[in-house]
């Protein structure tokens, strides 16, 4: 097909106007859309938290449903989780620079979920660190997790690529510029969940082992291991608790709340499978009143049934159950 040159030609003025308008609109969108509005909240000496929304990933929140944090030490800043996108990582770095002129010397990814590591690009590669299994999972699943975030958060993800930390962490004490940190290696939310206790301030950064007021997510969960990890956290002395999602707390309430949900979910799915329910019937069951107040409880329940029920079904259908 050929078009006559006449139909395609617009006056030079019209073309210029369109170009100027398009450019202006693009700049406006870029400037307006991608500001996470990060405002660090000081929760203890040298310690700030950026509290995300208690929502699902969306085109509106750009993936900012996560808590990130940083500790300003004499030897540089320790960042705990880098957020859901390159833009978030860069804005986190600028937010830190507004508070201190010390450089970021260590970025810890608590686990391999996208909202906790996709901001890594904003930081120097040699500052990135995580537990070995987390590094492995970012290598193997980072690409698909990133693609999925583009689907869920759209434009906010522009330019984001997964970057796996090179530095593997081991559990144990870590002295950082006057802060006596304790790295605690647990699992259950994912294959490797890093918890950081700052013994100098009493702040416990629990990562996604603890949710506060928001329903826990379970795409890589082992409910037994997770509950055991929470038992251990409950025995850990702290003054301030930073959950992976939801507001900062001063007591172990969010630990107990997360444990109560997981224990219920485990019992509920086991019972449903033993009763011979089809997955659509499990999805239709009512949720107990005590959990109705949790944010996004209906969506997370639906996702958890999809992720976890097949294993309960398999157990109920297998010959294992016949053994005493």
């Amino acid at each position, binding site marked *: 097909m050929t078009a006559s040159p006449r139909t395609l030609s617009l006056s030079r003025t019209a073309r210029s106007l369109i170009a100027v308008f398009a450019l202006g609109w693009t700049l406006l969108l870029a400037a307006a859309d991608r500001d996470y509005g990060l405002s660090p909240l000081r929760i203890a000496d040298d310690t700030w938290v950026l509290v995300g929304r208690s929502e699902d990933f969306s085109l509106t929140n750009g993936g900012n449903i996560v808590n990130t944090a940083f500790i300003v030490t004499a030897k540089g800043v320790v960042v705990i989780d880098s957020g859901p996108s390159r833009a978030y990582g860069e804005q986190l770095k600028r937010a830190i620079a507004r508070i201190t002129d010390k450089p970021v010397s260590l970025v810890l990814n608590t686990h391999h979920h996208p909202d906790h590591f996709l901001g890594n690009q904003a930081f120097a590669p040699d500052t990135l660190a995580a537990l070995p299994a987390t590094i492995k999972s970012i290598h193997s699943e980072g690409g698909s997790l990133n693609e*999925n975030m583009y689907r869920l958060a759209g434009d906010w993800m522009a330019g984001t690529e997964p970057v796996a930390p090179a530095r593997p962490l081991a559990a144990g004490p870590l002295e950082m510029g006057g802060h006596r940190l304790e790295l605690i290696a647990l699992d259950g939310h994912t294959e490797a969940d890093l918890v950081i206790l700052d013994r100098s301030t009493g702040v416990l950064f629990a990562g996604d082992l603890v949710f506060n007021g928001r329903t826990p997510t379970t795409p890589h969960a082992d409910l037994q291991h997770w509950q055991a990890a929470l038992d251990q956290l409950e025995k850990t002395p702290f003054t301030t608790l930073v959950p992976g999602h939801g507001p900062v707390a001063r007591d172990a309430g969010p630990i107990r709340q997360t444990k109560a949900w997981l224990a219920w979910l485990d019992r509920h799915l086991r019972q449903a499978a033993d009763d*011979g329910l089809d997955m*659509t019937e499990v*999805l239709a069951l009512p949720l107990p009143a005590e959990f109705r107040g949790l944010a996004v409880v209906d969506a997370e329940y639906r996702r958890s049934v999809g*992720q976890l029920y097949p294993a309960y*079904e398999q157990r109920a259908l*297998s010959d294992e159950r016949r053994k005493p």
Partner: protein
Amino acid sequence: MKNKALMAVVALWLACTFNTGHAASPAAPLRADPLDSPRWADMRKEMFPASAQVVFDDRVKVTAPLTAENAMNVPVSVDASALPGVREVLVFADFNPIVRIVRFEPSGAHAALGFRIKLQQSTPVRAAVRTADGTWHVGGTWVNTAGGGCTLPSTGSGSPEWQKRLGEVSSRVWARKEGGERIRLRIIHPIDTGLAAGIPAFFLQDLDLADNQGKPLMHIEGFEPIAENPVFTVDIPAARAATAYRVSGRDNNGNAISAAIEK
């Protein structure tokens, strides 16, 4: 001549279908697609003979989550037991690259089936139920999904484990409170749609569920969009409950499936 007659029928049908908006013709109240799918007209042509009577019917219940995060494993339950004289049920999804999902004939079982499917994008999932008088009764629901379920390789195709266990059946029978029994069974099978590059279509073609006397309870014809390691839920009325059951069948490569279902 035959073509002309066919065209006349089609024209008549089109006239009826597209006449519904006119307030002046209260006769022939053909309902528009309750799911308002732009693919319905194609589905009507593709799935049913032009001469067939096709009606939308709320007695055909299709239950599936409105939003399905995992497009590889979307749970669906079809229940047509409110209709008398069900002969066969055809389940399909308008926007799937492979539209047909499963067809079943509930010869002795309830006219209901639970299963899981792969979806490529958001789509209506429908069940068309043919009753003894030849009428097709259609019910359905929309399922929203980010999709991709049909063009991804099964996880089984990438692991050697399923080859050793292919066709292995685990099952269990429950007594139902409302009488009768429920059978749930799971079959180890990777089920590939043939749409992922380099992996040929590999799926369950026929499954027959019978009692231990060999009397048929349900025939299931599977298509590519059934989810990997399929799980089926079948309900048996009290009158057909037996001391044990049997499932047999084969996939499209001729691998046999055969297992006793014991209590």
